[in-house]
């Protein structure tokens, strides 16, 4: 097969309707970038959930002596109460595991996070004795916690149930909202891109109708006739994918690693190694979005 003709045609085709091609590339570029961003945000949410979701335990705070903050608490929770609570916790189908934390363990943890100076010596503001006993419950599914909370709540000796997941809620909210927004906008632009590719092909077929007519007459094979169109679609897709890839790389490099990862250190941020899925999705979606309408429409505009 004489490929020189095909490539000449390809070049002419790309030049002939340049402004339209640029518009298609830009639209496709943005929609692919947003698709990629959506995938990255999904991975990001996964990372956050992996870290915090595992640590997201529910802490059952037990009653302390002299704890006036809770009317249910008369005195320090005794062993019988603790056993009863532990039994309920272990019986719950939502619970993966549980762990009892003594006053001393709680105090040690506190000292890790806060300035030890306040907590030591004869004048310390808080001593181990001021800490409540706690039962730390790890859930099987971070989303399913109502059962355990309602069955433990109100048991004798339970002062409060601290659901740490609330703290991470805004983080998840933000990431998921952004992900949904990206994918929604991407979807709209994908529709626009599909329509534009279709129009580009219609225009290209119209501009080349004479050549196509002659090719059909002299017996050029269908694949040979459609090849310039397919290559045009592929070139558009390739440029868009490269641009989207660059934009996503910039996002990871400058947006996340260079900016957010510094200022929001406590969150595990996605790195290059996490961007493989996004790269694959973008690299497959791009060509699909241009080749599919091209294959469908060249059949329509170029009958054998």
């Amino acid at each position, binding site marked *: *097969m*004489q490929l*020189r*003709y095909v490539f000449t045609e390809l070049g002419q085709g790309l030049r002939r309707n340049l402004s339209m091609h640029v518009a298609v590339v830009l639209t496709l570029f943005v929609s692919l970038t947003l698709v990629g961003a959506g995938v990255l945000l999904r991975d990001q949410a996964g990372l956050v959930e992996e870290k915090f979701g595992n640590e997201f335990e529910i802490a059952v705070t037990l009653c302390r002596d002299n704890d006036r903050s809770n009317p249910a608490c008369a005195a320090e929770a005794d062993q019988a109460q603790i056993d009863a609570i532990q039994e309920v916790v272990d019986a719950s189908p939502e619970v993966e595991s549980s762990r009892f934390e003594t006053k001393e363990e709680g105090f040690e943890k506190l000292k890790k996070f806060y300035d030890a100076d306040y907590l030591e010596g004869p004048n310390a503001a808080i001593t181990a004795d001021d800490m409540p006993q706690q039962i730390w419950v790890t859930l099987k599914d971070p989303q399913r916690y109502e059962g355990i909370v309602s069955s433990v709540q109100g048991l004798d000796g339970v002062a409060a149930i601290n659901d740490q997941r609330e703290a991470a809620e805004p983080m998840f909210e933000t990431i998921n909202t952004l992900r949904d927004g990206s994918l929604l906008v991407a979807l709209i632009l994908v529709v626009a891109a599909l329509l534009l590719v279709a129009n580009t092909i219609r225009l290209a077929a119209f501009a080349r109708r*004479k*050549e196509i*007519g*002659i*090719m*059909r*007459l*002299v*017996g*050029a*094979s*269908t694949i*040979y*006739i459609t090849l310039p169109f397919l290559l045009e679609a592929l070139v558009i897709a390739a440029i868009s994918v490269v641009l989207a890839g660059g934009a996503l790389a910039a996002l990871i490099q400058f947006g996340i690693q260079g900016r957010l990862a510094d200022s929001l250190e406590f969150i595990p941020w996605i790195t290059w190694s996490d961007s493989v899925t996004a790269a694959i999705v973008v690299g497959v979606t791009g060509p699909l979005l241009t080749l599919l309408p091209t294959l469908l429409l060249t059949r329509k505009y170029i009958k*054998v």
Partner: protein
Amino acid sequence: MIRFEKVTKSYPGTGSPALDQVSVDIEKGEFVFLVGTSGSGKSTALRLVLREARPTTGRVYVAGKEINRLASWKVPRLRRQIGTVFQDFRLLQNKTVSENVAFALQVIGRSRTDIRNLVPETLEMVGLDGKGDRMPDELSGGEQQRVAIARAFVNRPMILIADEPTGNLDPTTSVGIMKLLDRINRTGTTVVMATHDHGIVDQMRKRVVELDHGRVVRDQAQGVYGFQH
């Protein structure tokens, strides 16, 4: 080479069929005129040979194959065996004469060596020696039609189909084109030509098939245009 067996062709949404129970047999190497008034079905018959259209009923054979049953990916191969010439030349205005002829070979994937040999050879044969680098709009109508014939013939097809090839040309020029088609016919190529042109048909004395409202009303060896049967 070409056989129509009770071929009827109705275009959707039109009343009477464009071709009505047409049976014609054209042997290898024949030269056949297809005559008839405007709308009698000449172009339709030629389109059926090229499988540009399919018969509504009946069968069309080209080179022994029923072409309605040809898989559509085999249609290009059929068309490579048929050269086609039209009234309006259908040349690419942005290509030179040589490039126009070479185009027909390029797009069916012929090698560059073949193209280098065949194109000048064919241009010489149609009498356009030395005009290979001209653009179509620098040529007269007759010369443009010669380019079209060169393009149709460059792949040495078994059949040459010409739909009113002299329709846009003056009588003198037309005679030159007819001589060229006759020469091509003498190389063994079957030529089928639809025409309105009395003078030419009368002069050539070849087989004439006359259509009227889609029906064959005459099929005569060495006929004339206006013969009243």
